[in-house]
């Protein structure tokens, strides 16, 4: 299958590709050729695309066995950078413009809330980057599990959706009337799509990466 046909099927995959180092300008190249050229494991690529495209998709044991955890890890790691550098920055610009006509105190209230949300998510990412991902890396390299485990990660995997949901409600329902409805719509589109994207991201962590790590941990103990 051609990569361009894949995007034709689900254009939202356009968000996934750059996180795997795949850039547009595919020409007539097939998915497998592009994967080979960019060093992405094709089985992991298909698994991620399925997780991203189908609500409630549960990966099969075979799919988890076949996919390379390194590629999944790369995807998740790069996603974090995209969220922080692209999505949050874009949303911040939109929010700044949205609340520009508000009173100074209203502006501060709303922007402080957004800032609080952003910091919370960044902390969440930092934990994954500094604790969980290095652990996964060491398990992949065949080191013993030590005293950390994927189970511990699941325990600490906090909910980062609530505040984004609140932001959605605040913008949709309680914004001061001086704000531009057009800009409010732009913010809402961005928030809804970010929220969907984050949900898929969390699913890939919980339903793909964690089971993969469990499998490796068990092998080591056996």
């Amino acid at each position, binding site marked *: 299958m051609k990569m361009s046909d894949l995007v034709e099927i689900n254009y939202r995959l356009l968000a996934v590709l750059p996180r795997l180092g795949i850039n547009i300008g595919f020409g007539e190249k097939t998915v497998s050729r592009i994967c080979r050229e960019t060093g992405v494991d094709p089985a992991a690529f298909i698994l991620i695309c399925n997780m991203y495209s189908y609500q409630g998709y549960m990966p099969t044991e075979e799919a988890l066995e076949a996919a390379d955890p390194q590629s999944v890890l790369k995807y998740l790691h790069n996603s974090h950078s995209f969220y922080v550098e692209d999505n949050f920055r874009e949303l911040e610009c939109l929010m700044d413009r949205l609340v520009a006509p508000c009173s100074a*105190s*209203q502006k*501060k*209230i*709303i922007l402080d*809330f957004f800032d*609080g*949300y952003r910091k919370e998510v960044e902390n969440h990412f930092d934990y994954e980057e500094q604790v969980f991902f290095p652990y996964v890396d060491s398990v992949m390299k065949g080191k013993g599990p030590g005293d950390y485990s994927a189970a511990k990660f699941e325990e600490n995997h906090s909910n980062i959706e*609530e*505040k984004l*949901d*609140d*932001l*959605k*409600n*605040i913008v949709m*329902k*309680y*914004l*001061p009337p001086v704000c531009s409805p057009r800009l409010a719509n732009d913010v809402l589109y961005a928030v809804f799509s970010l929220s969907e994207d984050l949900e898929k991201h969390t699913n890939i962590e919980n339903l793909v990466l964690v089971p993969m790590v469990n499998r490796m941990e068990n092998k080591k103990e056996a």
Partner: protein
Amino acid sequence: MTVFLIMPSRIMARGIEGVFHDLGEFKVEGIVSDISSREEAMLKNMSVDAIIVDPAVFAHSSRGNVKHFISEYTDAPVVAFPSMLMDDESARQYDAVLNLYDSPAEIIHKLRTAVSAPKDNASADGSELSSREKDILICVAKGLINKEIADLYNISIHTVITHRRNITRKTGIKTVAGLTVYALLNNLIDPSSVE
């Protein structure tokens, strides 16, 4: 399930208690014979499944707004049990109307239907915050914890949690930070009180 009675007639209140006693399922949580500030305070602190009210408690001119008045304090369905004739127009505001000649089974049936009916979200009243919910929201926004709010208003923590759940259901806002933004944008609190 618990029911709060607002009725001046002792004999009618006793009658309801008797029906509940015989048939189980419902229980009278409190009875007041009038609506003064003391009773209003009681109503505020109550978390019951239904309110039964005799419209005779209210002055004739305000009888059209009984449901509205009570829903300021609670989300529970309001059932009328009139001791005198009531016009159809004012009967319509209630979630159910009991009749002096209803059989005990009928009374239970009407209450059960009123309690299980989906909350009337179509009307603005069902989704606007009540004044008590606003009080609680202000406390939450100011950073008080449930225990402190319970002590402040002399209500149980359970009641505070019920109010908070309703606030979240109505506004769609779950986090304390989000509720603070709501309170500030709606001018319920002063920005200086949350610094």
